[in-house]
């Protein structure tokens, strides 16, 4: 008997909870505004090394090993592609952002991000891009892309990010 009453109570409470949660949605004036806005269709979404949800422009990003500003062969190939695009799109200039993962200490990472941005700039100038078209900024660990705290996220955050101006 007692069990039965409890069961009825639970169902009643669930109904109340259901009602109240519906009510809490209602005042926002319909659901349309809550729909996530789809990203604008891009004419040139690329995939592969250098391109992910954070880089949909014409220039691919490059990635680094832990505590390193050295360019891997993948990074060098991406920079060659970037240089080709820049040659065909003169006089557009680009901001090279150097980023680090959250590990280590933040002052050192600001310097490391600077080193990463400068590595790419130096390589691009060697490929014939005028230094005046290439600006650098280090964000260190201040503006991470991936927010998880694991190697997958850290690897994504150790990058040079290219923004065409």
């Amino acid at each position, binding site marked *: 008997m007692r069990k039965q009453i409890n069961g009825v109570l639970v169902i009643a409470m669930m109904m109340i909870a259901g009602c109240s949660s519906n009510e809490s949605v209602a005042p926002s004036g319909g659901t349309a505004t809550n729909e996530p806005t789809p990203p604008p269709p891009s004419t040139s979404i690329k995939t592969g090394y250098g391109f992910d949800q954070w880089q949909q422009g014409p220039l691919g990003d490059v990635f680094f090993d832990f*505590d390193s500003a050295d360019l891997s062969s993948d990074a060098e190939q991406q920079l060659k592609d970037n240089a080709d695009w820049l040659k065909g799109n003169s006089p557009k200039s680009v901001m090279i952002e150097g980023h680090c993962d959250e590990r*280590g*200490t933040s002052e*050192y990472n*600001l*310097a490391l991000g*600077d080193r990463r941005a400068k590595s790419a700039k130096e390589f691009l100038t060697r490929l014939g891009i005028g230094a005046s078209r290439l600006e650098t900024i*280090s964000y260190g660990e*201040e503006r991470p892309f991936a927010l998880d705290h694991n190697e997958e996220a850290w690897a994504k955050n150790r990058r040079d990010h290219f923004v065409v101006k």
Partner: protein
Amino acid sequence: MRIFRNTVAYFLVCLFCSAIISLPCIGAETGEYIAIRKEGASKIAIVLNKPEAQGKKEIDWAQNLDTVVSNGLSFTGLFSIIPPPLNVKDTSDPKNTKINFGALSSVGSEIYAGGTVTKKAGDVVLEMEVYETASAKQILRKTYSGHEDQLRAMGHAFCADLVELLTGKKSFFGSKIVFVSNSTGSKEIYQCDFDGEGIRQLTALKSISLTPAYSPDGKYLAYTSFSSGPPALFIKNLATGIIARVAKEGISIDPGWRNNDEVATTLSFEGDQEIYLIKPDGSIAQRVTRNRGIDVSPTFSPDGSKMAFVSSRNGLPQIFIQDLQSGQVKRLTFSGRYNTQPSWSPNGDKIAYSTWESNGEINIFVINPDGTGLVQLTRKCRENEYPSWSPDGSMIVFGSNREGKKKLFVMNANGENQRHLLQLDGEQMQPSWSLFR
């Protein structure tokens, strides 16, 4: 040691020649009294009697001052504060109440401090007396006066005098701590008093501001800011409000003051990340490092002759010391693969820094400038970073995420008594304790 004793004797003579020092304003010279204590002796047992007062305002002031002094002395970690016994005053002769030293001794008091609060021309006048209980000798008598909104400063001026008298060293009372907080949603520079009270937001740049550091005299505040684009060094003259901006190509980051006229910072406009000395007007005085790799986070010996800094010249970051005159460099840290954030103690005898350990923790260590005497101060509590010494070298402020979010903590210089510095929304980091006080 003999010289030290002679100095003490000299100060004692001076003290008794001028037993009553009455001063119209806050802060002044003090005598010096050194309790005969063994090295590592326990805390100084003090009875702090609430200042006597008559009149509603005066009683309120006395209550506030008692709290300020009690909290201030507790914060030093030097004292055990004993509640005054009920019969602390001998009132058998109402016209001539006396301090009951017998009662004080029986509760274990070594030092007794009490006084009176009166009002004079609208101002608060605090008259304090300190006695050594065993000998019933007066060791300090001093008057502090000020406006009623200066009660904290007045109470701390007394704490400063008392600590200096008992330890023979200047205290940290009056010093400030600058730090970074993201409470508003962006990283801004803040300041608080040595005890975490009196929090003030100093920048509202809505950008990323980092690594604040006061010049030793407190006239300038240097910090890194992204508000004008790439990270630049801002040197703010606090009297005029004028900011000298060092914004070279690349980075201009992470200042460390050598003295009142020179601040070291890392610039990369010549390619590599090198340390330079900058004048407060923003002009470059001198390039200090010349080595391939990152050089960052300068901190100086008290005489400014040597600079400890972080360098990746051998691979992963380690701490090095450079003699500025000769240019000679030697590596300081050999334990741990990733050592950064050095802070040279104001007494010159220690360098604190952080090690990122293979287990993922970041811990704070201290080491002698000659590389001996390595001691670990934090352990088994996630990331502990950015140590900075109190101006008397007795404490270290640092950042820690031991409870999840990054918050500011303080500890004794030996690592004991680790506790929160302050409560503020968001995360706090990069604390820097001022040398001025």
